[in-house]
């Protein structure tokens, strides 16, 4: 409970108190004005004072009460006619008649209000106008007061005004002038009373209530304000004021007509202008406005219609440009009021703001929903757990992300719907680039232990069955002597074959070991993004409870049936479910059929094996030589067939070509061939990768490789952004760089399927017929005929062509990125000397992966890839590149991002003993190559520039998105 004595509420300020005193002096002066002011000026002052009265009443009604009426002329006329009626017909003294007129105005305003209050807003306004018209028409019927043509005040009535005699004597003026003086005093009195009354009213709690009603009538009602009664009270007051003024004005004019007394121009239009221009909602405004109108009237009224048009235009302009009017501007600029009504709480902890400073109206922040549209306030940002990056899915993409982020020291949580990792062999070809990533993570050796090495992978056999005739063979995965060199030269790592069941635990194990928090049996449900990050709702399937995880960024790696991409509405190109395929896992000892031709894949060309699936029957080695997976297709339009183990085993035996062999089917699963890639990989703070954004058949063996490299591309960027060293726009480059790759591999994999069709054709397997017919057609190529020779050559050609599936080194290794995180060096892209899909072309052109060369560090062999990575930038330069080393140090300091520089050459930390770096660096000895944390070249310079620090810093800032 605060100490009450420390607080007080004040309305007045020093300035306002002074101003009020000044005003009192002014009023006193005005009282004595008739003594020294000319008659015409007195008449002008009369005009101003009566207009002030009308304006203050209208201001109270509309500016404070929110009741915009354009019918106040009803009461002016009413008051005028009532006054005339009382004076002429009842012989009442005009001064008393004025009071009586006021009473009449008050009285009649009640039933009028009853009627017009049934309308709202603008319709209320017109309603008041109609009411005024009704009054006009009615009074035009009143013959006693002249009907439609009106009447004038008889002179004896005029003379009977109290005080005329006294004034005539004191001021030594004629009767008419004396009347003017009395009218003036009455006007002054009326103005003072009206302003005083309004001011006093505003200082009471009812004044507060009126402001509340104006700001928000429903809220006012809900705190107990009787809004209807308040509005009625204000309306009656305004009517009374108008009636009093009306009676006074027309007594002064001494004649009346219905047109004039109920004139909408004189008693509403001008009043509106006064209030609006002077400053609506203030007490000072109407006074100023009246003075201005008077001035304008004086100077321009002669211009008749033009004057009126100008007034109209002025009112429009003020309304649109400065709706608070003149005094509103003064108040805003100087926080000065002559009639202050604001209650200030003065106390030890209640600062009074500087009201002259523009106040920023704070809009309540609108959280953004999944689709990007603003959400209503009900959405919460509550959560239970918090981390930097939330990863959905523990497959190759998710697992690799987790491992990489943990290796960079970024806190992350990975959730996985099932209780364990991959339970089917799935992906297996692990290409060199992926092995490089595993190498950086320090799990290359472990993976190699579990893998089947390159030399056992490469005898791609095309046969009628394993036991049957071998139709052709292709050396694959870099096993052909000429391709082997390519593969060996391209990377410090070797391609190998590891089923996903064995690889995932290694990756995820590494991730968890280095800090990833993994929750199994935790299912992703939904998420929302807001300004601070992402809040994902997940369900713990064990406890069957949902909870929320908040992360700064979320990685959606939830596979080919991703719901995250659905929820984000990521645009997808292509289709799913083009062909149907079944995987039959089995154990059988097939050594006798394959040990002499060791391979990962055996392709079976039999009748029926071209249906569905990838277009050919496959027997894939899972573990040499007893664990296998056979792939067989079905017609996707028929739906997956319901096979028993026996039937599956029969299919397998058929593919093997041995009906007696012991085959034990361990698992059967179905999948479809897809040809789909997301046009955009991310939305806001959610980044999708892996199968979720590129869905394709297993041909080319690119799936998990691409997924892991998606992760490798994104994670270093997340690291730098989370550390505050890079701008968030760096994250956009993930999509720019990886989406084209995704599209390329999806296209490539689907194309590889189509490449089987010609083989089937040439073998004659596509035409129908009995088994004998088919055998005959297949054997046709064995004939010594020219036709058969052509067929043999064709078959050869088509088999060779499958190198595009199995020796596609360029697609595996040759990604070149183009984005804002790659700074070009204005050299043209090097030409592809050979087929760019089949062959990897090493280059240091910005955007390409740094070429692998073996370097020597303390007599140990180290690859350029080994120097790079680990979440930092690397700058490679030659013996004369000391300038770059210094530049790197300075740029590091400036950007706070680690740029490790290496000079390569004799006498340097790193020696180029084979001379391969000099040959492949493509820059001069004093040049440099800047390598990004993902091993791709970010920039290079041919030689030492004039300002290496400036240039390098500029490049870094560009890559980091900070310029």
């Amino acid at each position, binding site marked *: *409970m*605060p100490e*009450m004595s420390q*607080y007080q*509420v004040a309305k007045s300020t020093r300035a306002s108190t002074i101003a009020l005193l000044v005003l009192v002096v002014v009023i006193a002066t005005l009282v004595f004005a008739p003594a020294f002011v000319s008659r015409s000026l007195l008449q002008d002052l009369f005009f101003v004072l009566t207009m002030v009265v009308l304006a203050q009443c209208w201001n109270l009604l509309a500016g404070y009460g929110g009741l915009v009426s354009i019918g106040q002329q009803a009461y002016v006329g009413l008051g005028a006619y009532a006054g005339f009626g009382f004076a002429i017909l009842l012989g009442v003294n005009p001064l008393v008649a004025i009071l009586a007129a006021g009473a009449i105005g008050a009285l009649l305003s009640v039933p009028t209000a009853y009627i017009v209050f049934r309308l709202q807003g603008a319709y209320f306004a017109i309603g008041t106008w109609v009411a005024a018209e009704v009054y006009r028409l009615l009074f035009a019927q009143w013959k006693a007061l002249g009907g439609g043509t009106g009447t004038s005040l008889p002179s004896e009535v005029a003379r009977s005004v109290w005080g005329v005699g006294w004034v005539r004597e004191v001021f030594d003026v004629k009767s008419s002038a004396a009347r003017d003086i009395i009218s003036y005093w009455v006007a002054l009195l009326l103005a003072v009373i009206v302003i005083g009354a309004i001011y006093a009213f505003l200082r*009471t*709690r009812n004044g*507060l*209530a009126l*402001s*509340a009603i*104006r*700001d*928000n009538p*429903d*809220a*006012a*009602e*809900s*705190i*107990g*304000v*009787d809004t209807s009664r308040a509005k009625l009270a204000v309306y009656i007051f305004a009517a009374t004021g108008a009636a009093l003024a009306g009676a006074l004005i027309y007594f002064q004019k001494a004649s009346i007509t219905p047109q004039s007394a109920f004139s909408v121009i004189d008693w509403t239009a001008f009043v509106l202008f006064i209030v609006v221009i002077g400053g609506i909602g203030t007490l000072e405004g109407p006074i100023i406005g009246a003075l201005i109108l008077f001035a304008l009237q004086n100077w321009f009224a002669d211009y008749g219609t033009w004057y009126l048009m100008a007034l109209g235009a002025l009112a429009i302009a003020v309304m649109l440009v400065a709706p608070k009017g003149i005094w509103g501007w003064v108040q805003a600029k100087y926080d000065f009021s002559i009639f202050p009504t*604001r*209650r*200030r*709480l003065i*106390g030890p*902890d*209640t*600062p*009074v*703001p500087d009201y002259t400073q523009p*106040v*920023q*109206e*704070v809009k*309540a*922040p609108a*959280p953004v929903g999944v689709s990007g549209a603003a959400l209503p*306030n*009900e*959405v*919460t*940002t*509550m959560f239970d757990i918090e981390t930097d990056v939330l990863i959905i899915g523990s497959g190759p993409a998710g697992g690799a992300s987790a491992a990489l982020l943990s290796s960079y020291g970024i806190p992350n949580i990975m959730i996985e719907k099932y209780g364990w990792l991959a339970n089917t062999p799935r992906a297996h070809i692990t290409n060199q680039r992926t092995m490089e990533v595993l190498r950086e993570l320090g799990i290359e050796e472990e993976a190699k232990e579990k893998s089947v090495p390159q030399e056992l992978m490469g005898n791609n056999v095309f046969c009628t069955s394993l036991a049957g005739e071998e139709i052709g063979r292709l050396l694959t995965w870099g096993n052909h002597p000429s391709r082997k060199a390519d593969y060996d030269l391209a990377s410090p790592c070797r391609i190998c074959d590891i089923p996903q069941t064995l690889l995932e635990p290694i990756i995820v194990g590494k991730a968890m070991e280095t800090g990833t928090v993994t929750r199994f049996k935790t299912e992703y*449900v*939904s998420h929302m993004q807001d300004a601070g990050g992402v809040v994902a*709702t997940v369900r713990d399937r064990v406890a069957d409870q*949902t909870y929320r995880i908040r992360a700064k960024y979320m990685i959606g790696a939830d596979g080919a049936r991703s719901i995250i991409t659905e929820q984000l509405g990521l645009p997808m190109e292509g289709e799913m479910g083009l062909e149907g395929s079944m995987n039959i896992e089995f154990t059988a000892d097939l050594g006798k059929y394959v040990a002499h031709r060791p391979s990962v894949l055996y392709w079976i060309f039999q009748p029926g094996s071209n249906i569905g699936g990838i277009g050919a029957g496959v027997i894939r080695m899972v573990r040499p030589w007893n664990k296998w997976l056979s792939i067989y297709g079905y017609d996707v339009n028929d739906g997956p067939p319901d096979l028993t183990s026996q039937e599956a085993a029969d299919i397998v035996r058929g593919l093997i070509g041995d009906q007696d062999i012991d085959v034990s089917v361990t698992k059967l699963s179905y999948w479809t061939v897809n040809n789909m890639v997301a046009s955009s990989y991310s939305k806001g703070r959610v980044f999708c990768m892996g199968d979720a954004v590129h869905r394709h058949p297993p041909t080319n063996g690119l799936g998990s490789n691409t997924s892991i490299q998606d992760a490798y591309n994104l994670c270093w960027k997340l690291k730098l952004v989370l550390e505050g060293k890079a701008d968030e726009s760096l994250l956009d480059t993930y999509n720019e760089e990886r989406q084209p790759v995704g599209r390329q591999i999806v296209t490539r994999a689907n194309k590889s399927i189509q490449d089987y069709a010609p083989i089937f054709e040439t073998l004659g397997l596509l035409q129908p017929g009995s088994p004998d017919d088919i055998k005959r057609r297949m054997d046709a190529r064995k004939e010594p005929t020219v036709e058969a020779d052509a067929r043999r050559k064709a078959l050869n050609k088509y088999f060779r062509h499958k190198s595009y599936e199995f020796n596609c080194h360029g697609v595996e290794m040759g990604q070149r990125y183009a984005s804002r995180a790659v700074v070009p060096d204005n050299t043209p892209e090097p030409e592809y000397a050979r087929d760019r899909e089949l062959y990897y072309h090493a280059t240091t052109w910005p955007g390409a992966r740094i070429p692998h060369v073996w370097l020597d560090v303390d007599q140990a062999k180290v690859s350029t890839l080994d120097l790079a990575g680990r979440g930092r930038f690397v700058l490679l330069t030659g013996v004369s590149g000391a300038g770059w080393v210094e530049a790197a140090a300075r740029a590091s300091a400036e950007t706070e991002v680690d740029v490790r520089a290496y000079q390569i050459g004799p006498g340097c930390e790193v020696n180029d003993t084979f001379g391969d770096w000099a040959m492949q660096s493509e820059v001069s000895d004093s040049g440099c190559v800047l390598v990004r944390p993902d091993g791709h070249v970010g920039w290079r310079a041919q030689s030492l520039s004039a300002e290496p620090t400036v240039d390098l810093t500029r490049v870094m800032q560009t890559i980091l998105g900070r310029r």
Partner: protein
Amino acid sequence: MLLEIRNLRRAFGAVVVADDISLDVAEGEALGIVGPNGAGKSSLFNLITGQLKPDGGNILLDGADITNAPVRRRVHDGIGRSFQIPQPFEHMTTFENVSVAACFGAGGSEAEEQEHVIDVLHRTGLLPKANMPAGSLSLLERKRLEMARALATKPRLLLLDEIAGGLTEAECQSLIATIQEINSGGTTIVWIEHVTHALLAVVSRLIAIDFGKIIGEGNPKAVMDSEAVRQIYLGMEA
């Protein structure tokens, strides 16, 4: 019983917002209300405050039938309410906002209510902003102002409508503390909220409403875990 609702019914055409609702609120209790959007929660509040007239049924405040009483009467009788989307009197200062509520809700003059107003501002942490125009307040401050205004009317029954939405964790904690303090001071609270953990920290009883009907009532945790309620939330979050 402070508030008794008997068979309340209200529909807008085909949309039923109150489907034969009956509910009792004991004096001094803290009751929570949850339910999906459009379930009829705010409409229930509108029916209680009188902004909405029921098609059928009764509402009794402390035994007196207020079913047809106008909004103002109910405010004077002791029902205070904060709006879900804050409705400050934007051109008036915070102090004036609370002052007008105190004068008209509780019924005194400005001078009489001054101490009460300062106390309310203090309890809702708005004293530093007392002289700021309400239009310049942040979201949390506006929500506090909603509460302050409702409190100023010296309510016996305080209806809070989704007052925690959009706040940070720290802000939410501070709000919870204030509400707890108000409740322990003797004011009965009925609170609609989506931020369920805030609700559960304060209320001793919970109702769940869906399609204008009460689908769960009782111990807060039990109601939240009930099948019916989890169904709705699952549907909400997807």
